[in-house]
Every structure is written in structure tokens, then in C-alpha cells.
């Protein structure tokens, strides 16, 4: 089901959590709300679910205005960060809860409810554990029960709040892959909140990057990674290095040297140059950045080198393959391969 968020504003006792947020979610897509804590991503998710009421604006489910509907009427499957499983119920009772509380007219017969719940427990790969209680399961298993429980009501939209936030790295990775598989099989419109950019990049069809109650950028993971539209997004998604530059004669200058990057459209004046540390080429010659190595350490398969460049306050980081001969040098000359220039004031 398409979901349209229109000009939503939300205040918590005078403190604004969201300012004028609009977002279109297409039926069947897997979309990630990504941002640092306090960016309003969870608030937006809870507004879609109906667990919060917007101060202004409205939310459409299909063509229907959902703002007036209660949580129950919205048919959302909500998966909570800390699972919120019913601890006094078995896994089977938990998963079938949404069907059991329906009024008599819409409630399937007992056997059908059991059947459906068992199918879902099977889908989340917990077959045989239906008689256990939540406290007898591991964190990853509990999260899967929570998902099965949310899927049982055949929701119009599946909402997940930091679904893997409380799990260790190994389990996170596994569940991530598995959630993608479940989504591809069931095709539920899915919105999930995360502060883990790797999770968002790997899992989502589209990313919504949020900061301080506003949406910064919406796009596919590739678009957002390759063409961030603000210094914030550049810094938040993936690794980034930043340095102060000057724009003059449609070229970039650092410390009185042209660095060999042309900026045809930029206005003259100070600017901020952003690039990915691994996205650099080592060069010889005049028009490049030259730095003295102040620190160099190996991080897994790469070597992270910190360079002090003449005319800059802050050292700049670049990544080299760990066995690259340049790693032994004391001076390195390089040029970013892909980069982006932002006005100095915006950063």
C-alpha cells in the first residue's frame, strides 16, 4: 500500500521533533529511515503507525486519510526495538495474538489461527519452538518471533524500529540478509528505522536520511552514497574526508596551490571539499595534494594514512591497500577521484 506523509510536524511539549516532513513510500518497497539519535526517525515511524498523533499535517494510506484512524484500524505490523513480546505467552500464543483478539465476525476458526501461526513460525525458522516462552529464546530468535507476530495480521505496512539494534554484529548480519529474503517473498511495504548506515545501504531499496527533525535526502543507496546533497549526508553515509579549499578561476586551491580539480560552476570564494578516503589516486606532479604522513595504521584490508597538508588546520585521512608501497613513504601526493564541493557556510 502506498503511504504518503504530507507536511508532518510534531512537537513534544513545545520541543519540535519533526518539522514539515513529507515523504512518499511506494507500495512493496523496503525503505530505511536513517539518521543519528534525535533526528526524529523513530518519531516518524510511530506517527505512521498511529502510536503518536501529528501536531500538523496528515498521513495517507493509499487514498485514505489515516490521520483519523486509530492504531488498530491502520493494520500496521510494528516490530519494536526491544521486541515487546508478551512474556507470559508461548511463542505460538504470541504469534497468534493479533488473530485471536479480532471480533467474532473477522476471526478465523481456532484451527485456522493455529495453522497460520505455525506457518509463520516456520517462515521465521523457529519451527519446533512454538511452545517455548520468550525468555527461553535468544535475542535474534525473539526478534524473529516479533516479526512473525507482526506479519500474522497481514499488515498493510510493516514498520520496524531499530530491528537489529540490540543484537551482536554476527546475528545482525544474518538477520539482515534474512529480512531481505522475507521481504522479497512477502512483498510487504516495509519501513525500518536504523542508525547503522551499513545496514541501511545493504538492505533498503531507498534511503531517507534524516537530521534534526528534517529529511536531508531521499534516494537509492547508490544515489545517496555517490551524490550526497549536503555535507551532513556526505559525512553520515560512509567514510568521508573533508578539507577547506578556495575556489578561484574555476579551480580548487589549497594553501596557494592549485590541486588539479576543476570546478566550472562554482562561485569564487572559500569552500569545503568532501571525498571518500578510499576514492583517491596517487599522482606525481604539481597539481595535486601533498601531505606529510603523521599517522598510519592498518585496518583489516586497508591502510589508513593521516596526512598533514600545508595550509590546512586538520589532518586528512586517505585509505590505501594495506600492501601498497606508498604506505612506507613519508610524503604522499594524491588527488580525489570522486569528490564534491559544498559552500563553506553550509558545512
Amino acid at each position, binding site marked *: 500500500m502506498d503511504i504518503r506523509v504530507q507536511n508532518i510536524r510534531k512537537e513534544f511539549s513545545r520541543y519540535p521533533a519533526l518539522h514539515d516532513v513529507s515523504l512518499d513510500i511506494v507500495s512493496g518497497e523496503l525503505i530505511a529511515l536513517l539518521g543519528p539519535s534525535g533526528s526524529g526517525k523513530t518519531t516518524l515511524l510511530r506517527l505512521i*503507525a498511529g*502510536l503518536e498523533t501529528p501536531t500538523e499535517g496528515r498521513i495517507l494510506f493509499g487514498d485514505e486519510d489515516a490521520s483519523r484512524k*486509530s*492504531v*488498530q484500524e491502520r*493494520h*500496521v*505490523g*510494528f516490530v*519494536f526495538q*526491544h521486541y*515487546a*513480546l*508478551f*512474556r*507470559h505467552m508461548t511463542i505460538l500464543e504470541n504469534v497468534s*495474538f*493479533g488473530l485471536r*483478539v*479480532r471480533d467474532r465476525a473477522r476471526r478465523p476458526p481456532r484451527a485456522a489461527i493455529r495453522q497460520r501461526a505455525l506457518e509463520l513460525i516456520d517462515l521465521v*525458522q523457529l519451527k519446533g519452538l512454538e511452545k*517455548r*516462552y520468550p*525468555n*527461553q*529464546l*535468544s535475542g*535474534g*530468535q525473539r526478534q524473529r518471533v516479533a516479526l512473525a*507476530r*507482526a506479519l*500474522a*495480521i497481514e499488515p498493510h505496512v510493516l514498520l520496524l524500529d531499530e530491528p537489529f539494534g540490540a543484537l551482536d554484529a554476527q*546475528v545482525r548480519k*544474518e538477520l539482515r540478509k534474512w529480512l531481505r529474503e522475507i521481504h522479497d517473498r512477502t512483498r510487504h511495504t516495509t519501513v525500518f528505522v536504523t542508525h547503522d548506515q551499513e545496514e541501511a545501504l545493504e538492505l533498503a531499496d531507498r534511503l531517507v536520511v534524516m537530521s534534526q527533525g528534517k529529511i536531508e535526502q531521499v534516494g537509492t543507496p547508490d544515489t545517496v552514497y555517490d551524490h550526497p546533497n549536503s555535507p551532513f549526508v556526505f559525512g553520515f553515509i560512509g567514510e568521508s574526508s573533508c578539507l577547506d579549499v578556495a575556489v578561484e578561476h574555476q579551480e580548487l586551491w589549497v594553501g596557494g596551490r592549485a590541486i588539479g580539480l576543476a570546478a566550472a560552476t562554482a562561485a569564487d570564494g572559500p569552500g569545503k571539499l568532501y571525498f571518500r578516503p578510499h576514492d583517491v589516486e596517487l599522482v606525481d606532479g604539481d597539481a595535486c595534494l601533498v601531505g606529510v604522513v603523521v599517522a598510519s595504521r592498518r585496518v583489516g584490508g586497508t591502510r589508513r594514512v593521516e596526512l598533514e597538508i600545508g595550509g590546512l588546520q586538520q589532518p586528512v585521512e586517505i585509505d590505501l591497500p594495506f600492501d601498497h608501497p606508498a604506505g612506507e613513504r613519508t610524503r604522499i601526493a594524491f588527488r580525489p577521484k570522486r569528490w564534491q564541493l559544498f559552500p563553506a557556510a553550509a558545512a
Partner: protein
Amino acid sequence: MAVDPSAGSALAAAPRRKLAAGRSVPTSERPAVKWTLIGIAVLFLAVILLLPLVAVFTQAFAKGPAVFLKALSDRDGVAAIKLTLLVAAIAVPLNLVFGVAAAWAVAKFEFKGKAFFTTLIDLPFSVSPVISGMIYVLLFGANSALSPWLKTQNLQIVFAVPGIVLATIFVTFPFVARELIPLMQDQGSGDEEAAISLGANGWQAFWYVTLPNIRWGLLYGVLLCNARAMGEFGAVSVISGHIRGVTNTMPLQIEILYNQYNFAGAFAMASLLALLALVTLVCKTVLELRFGVAASRRH
């Protein structure tokens, strides 16, 4: 990821067992210290709690079971027992409902004056029970503003059962709420949110999710409330008027018998009251044994 959790817990338990079997666990006391502490606690319990209880029962049967039974089957005695049970039967369910509602309001909602409200719940604990009784005498007694109206309605509150019930409710109000507030605050409203997002209405969320989550705290609060409701002396004493066979509850009856030097009768009644308290405790323990293993694990 089909890890058998029982295998996991067995693994986790293994080092613990090893530690227990080992000669010294680094964080535990030396045996001498341990037994001294246990000894002090047991001795204290025996002298302060157990001895008086035993004394009550021995005194009650001091002149033989015939005197004991006679004291209890006395007309005024039976009336006192009935009245006590009646008052508890009215006050406890009402405080159960009030207590749950108050705890719900404090734990799940934000509102202005919440701190004041929470303090107010504690008021009956901080005020002397005698004052609680006097409040109702002032409110509904012969010299009160309400008195003429009450007379026209033919309602007798002071020196009658309604007054005793009111005073008992007042005195026992905090037990359920106090027990539930920290529990419900700790649990938050995540489970209820999950329930309503799954389509449950408010009543279903309460019945199937909230109530099972708080049942042990609730039971404990109700038992404490009940024990106090049956045993309350001060507030009831002020408002009851001590009319024999009509407004005397068991504690008041005990005092009257005692003041008349009828020790056998007084202790017979006292032993029955103590027995009621013991029965409540036994009920709680039995319930906990029956469901409690799972319950304590789940809380």
C-alpha cells in the same frame, strides 16, 4: 541459526556449578561470618515474630478448647467476625480497582500535578489512622454540614457500617497502588503498544497483556491490603462507636474483651485474626509455588 537454547543454558550453568563446588568463591563471606549473620537473623525473627505468635495461640487455648470455642461462638463475637469479613470484602475489591487505575495513570501517562498525585496516594500511610477516622466523623458526623441532608436521606454513616468501610478504604488505599506503580513504570507501555498495533482494543490489551504482566505485584498488594483491612484498629475505633454486636470489628472486639479481663476470649479472637493473616500468607505462597517458578523467571 537453529541453536538449541537448552544446550546454551547448560553451558552457561556449568561454570557456576564449578564455582560452587570450589573451595572459596571470591565474592562470598567466610563460613564463620556467614553463619553468624544467618544466626542473628533467625534469632531476631524467632524473638520478634515467632514468639508472640506462639504466645497468642497458647494463651487462646490456655483454658482448653471449650473456652476457646465458646469465646468465638459468643453472639457479639460472631457479629464482629462477620463485620470484619464484610468490611474486607467491600474495601479490598474497591481498592483493587482504585489502585490499578491510579497506578495506570501514574505509570503510563504524563500529566500536570503528577508528583502531587503520587504524594497524595501516600497520604494514608503518613497520617495517623486515628486522624483518618476523625476526618470521617467531621465530614459525616452530627455536627457536619452534610448532616441535615444525610438525615433526610436516612443515611447513617458515622457509628455505622458505611463509616467503617470508608475509613478502612482510606487506610488501605496505598497498598495496591504502591505495589504496582514501580512495577508498571519499569515495564513501560511497549507491550500495550504492541497489543494495540496487533488490533487489540484497550480492554483486550489490559486483560490479556497488562494484567498478566502485573498479576504477582497485584496479588501481593491485594494480600497486604486485605491483611490491613481486617486488622485496622485506629481509624475504625474512632468511627465505629463500639456498639457491641453491631459496629465492633474483630480488633475492637479483642480490645473490649481484653479491657474486661476476659483474656481467654480476647486471645481466642486474636488467634483467629492471626490465623486469617496466616491463611493469606499461605495462599500467596501456594499460588507462587504453583505458578511462581515460571513467574519469578519472567519478571
